[in-house]
């Protein structure tokens, strides 16, 4: 057992876990942040993506101990109070989700994609960048639309800040 201290969605937390605990299980089982999902065993589906120190990573492929001291943002921490993150709003407005299971990881990856590419996104880039997130419902058509839409919204929001 080890004590892992980290900041999750802006709050400092300290959790005692077995050393073999993956970050995703710390979030789901110990902090009840069940928005982060597990969809595969081979680190491919991306349902578990969260941000660690601002980078989108697969929380199923990092030990809780490796995240000690880090700042973690999960899907639950993305909106500012009642105000949805532009990516969340774009997923809703473009019908970028159906069953919702891949959605949290998809949104967390998509935010990272837009942050890395700024306004330089096109359809082919978005499709390539979503390589690590698998969706079975949407055929990706509306997810791609949502990410491109959000890229525009995030640019506007950034300009306003």
């Amino acid at each position, binding site marked *: 057992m080890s004590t892992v201290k980290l900041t999750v969605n802006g709050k400092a937390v300290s959790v005692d876990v077995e050393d073999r605990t993956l970050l995703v299980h710390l979030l789901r089982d110990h902090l009840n942040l069940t928005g982060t999902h597990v969809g595969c065993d081979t680190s491919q589906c991306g349902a578990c993506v969260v941000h660690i120190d601002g980078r989108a990573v697969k929380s199923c492929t990092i030990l809780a101990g490796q995240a000690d001291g880090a700042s973690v943002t999960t899907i639950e921490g993305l909106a500012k109070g009642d105000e949805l993150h532009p990516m969340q709003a774009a997923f809703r407005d473009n019908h970028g989700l*159906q069953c919702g*299971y891949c959605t949290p990881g998809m949104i967390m990856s998509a935010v990272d994609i837009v942050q890395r590419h700024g306004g330089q996104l096109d359809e082919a880039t978005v499709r390539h960048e979503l390589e690590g997130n698998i969706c079975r419902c949407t055929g990706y058509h509306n997810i791609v639309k949502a990410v491109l839409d959000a890229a525009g919204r995030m640019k506007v929001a950034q300009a306003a800040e």
Partner: protein
Amino acid sequence: MGVEGIGASVVRKEDKRFITGKGRYVDDVKLPGMTYAHFIRSPHAHAKVKGIDASAALKLPGVVAVLNGKQIVDDKVGNLICGWAITSKDGSPMKMGAWPAMAPETVRFVGQAVAVVIAESKNLARDAAEAVVVDYEELPAVANVTEAIKAGAPQLHPEAPGNQIYDWVIGDENAVNDAFSKAANVVKLDVTNNRLAPNPMEPRSAVADYNEAEEHFTLYTTSQNPHVARLVLSAFYNIAPEHKLRVIAPDVGGGFGSKIYIYPEEMVALWASKKVGRPVKWTGDRTEAFLTDAHGRDHVTHAEMAFDANNKILGFRVKTYANFGAYMSLFSSAVPTYLYATLLSGQYDVPAIHAEVIAVYTNTTPVDAYRGAGRPEASYLIERMMETAARQLKVDPAALRKTNFITQFPHQTPVIMAYDIGDFNASLDAAMKAIDYAGFAGRKAQAKAQGKLRGIGVSCYIEACGIAPSKAVGSLGAGVGLWESAEVRVNPVGTIEVLTGSHSHGQGHETVFAQLISDRLGIPISQVSIVHGDTDKVQFGMGTYGSRSAAVGLTAILKAVEKVESKAKKIAAHALEASEADIVIENGEFKVTGTDKAIALPMVALAAYTAHNLPDGMEPGLKESAFYDPSNFTFPAGAYICELEVDPGTGKTSFVNFVAADDFGRLINPMIVEGQVHGGLAQGIGQALLEHAVYDANGQPITASFMDYTMPRADDLPSFKLSHTTTLCPGNPLGIKGCGEAGAIGASAAVINAITDAIGKNNLEMPATPDRVWRTIHAA
């Protein structure tokens, strides 16, 4: 009608919880004192279980119990059932082998459970499972139908000699023989429809909770049809009487058919929860999903089509071997028969059809309905046949289809189905226009100049949805009726709850169903809640599959809301001192037509519940229920055309364009309908290019993770161009046909027709992997 009514692309009410991480899936459920199950599964495709030694595991920390197949049989938990009886051509019933929830004596596929560990945590359960010693005696195994039907093949079940479950026929064999004897041309085709793993992103999960004082079970489960689950668990598996068993399917992360069935893990979780006196949770991992979720497709077919000198179809002859896997899953028997062979007329006027379907056991994961279920196999066969025929007869593939389209409705096919309405020329014309079919030859030449092989492929599909008229399916062997139920509750303040037996696991019912209420009663959808997925809340329902929830489930809601309107009008007429016949509903108000007298819905509702001033003899309250049983199947149809390029150096396919023109009848929410089509197309394209559940000759699965089984990813797929042509379904009052499966049914043939067009060779099996395409290009 309003901005949120029928035909409006309203954004989904349910989305907020999903995009903020507040969805509640089964694995999110935590109960006090909960234990965790880990199954011990056979590593062998076929073996005798000689003994199970759990003594070492039981000594490990945190282990609550280790339970095995013999115990579950001794406790009289029933064997798994198949709910549709099929009769062979010789009159004999289908031959079904016994399937206990955990194998007491014999395992017949890799992944079949023999025992389960119950422990204080998931990790501890898995740790302990490794200490359980199972003594297997390996038996010879067989994994594909071609081998399984041979004399001397390993035998799976004593009940099914030769591994044959049934040999079923449909149609008029003599008429077909006559047709072929008159034919000017005969086209022959061999087709394999590749086995698929459904892979909803949420793995299956179950939380079972037994309350000893009440002798009552609660089961949270990843189900598309919780009421059917309760019925089967109660009536056939002897878990508990229905009133002592509550089944809840909360947010469910996709199903595609695979979550229709009641699996061994749910049965074991319930049984174990009573055994250990504590709640039991099981959540599968992805490999378990590959090993135990019912697979789809897996047909081997030989077909022949007879044409006259004018290229009109005279007859169609089909022989299909269907791989059922090691056991008969819940609806497995119906898939390659009544959901497949009854669609073999396609969109065409085929005077004579005869099909024979032989169902075969193999040492593989059981096969059942997966998105489309039988209809993708039929559509793929017909549309590959039409393309092959066009090439052989040297006519344009679209023109050959048009020559043979059914144009008069209703149309009785030779294989049971009576198509009610459609306009196949309209959808094919729309698709051809959208993709500029006429300009293709020029584009192909241009691509050739750049070293690329360009092809175009057409697929005109039809399916039977709105499953299903209960009397009809009952006469064909179904063990259940396939109606749907609804209850509409108007609360005293005028808000509304709609209880439905349909189940949403991504389809957007919470929005679409509310749109109907909004349309009828003129209230915003925010005032309407859709309640589903809980047997304690909804009285009964058949669930969601077969593109049935709008055509059948929503019609049931319409029937209930009509009753509500009728009573509300009586109350309004009484309050307004008008004649009931003069009351109209507009924008949430009950008005006396031609006057300014009106009463708002909340006031009508309040009057119904205060009951101070109701018409004489009227019961208080405003709540009505209805059951709707459709009179016929519905027949969504459409045309898909795909244009693509093949890289001759690598065999890799890239999409240039993919157009879909569908006729789904009336659309309630076009945005959601299009989302359903996108997802279906992705699964159809996935089957054509990427996906294949493969076993080696000994029944060992080769593709049991996303490392080996190719899931469609964003960069494998194009954006789609969709359009709709509409003929309203005459069979239900809303004119709805259903849209959930179309993409998966129609897409595969369009892709393979396009690739074979591009490479100039007609023989190519799915999935058309780069290796396979490259090999076909360079084959002598």
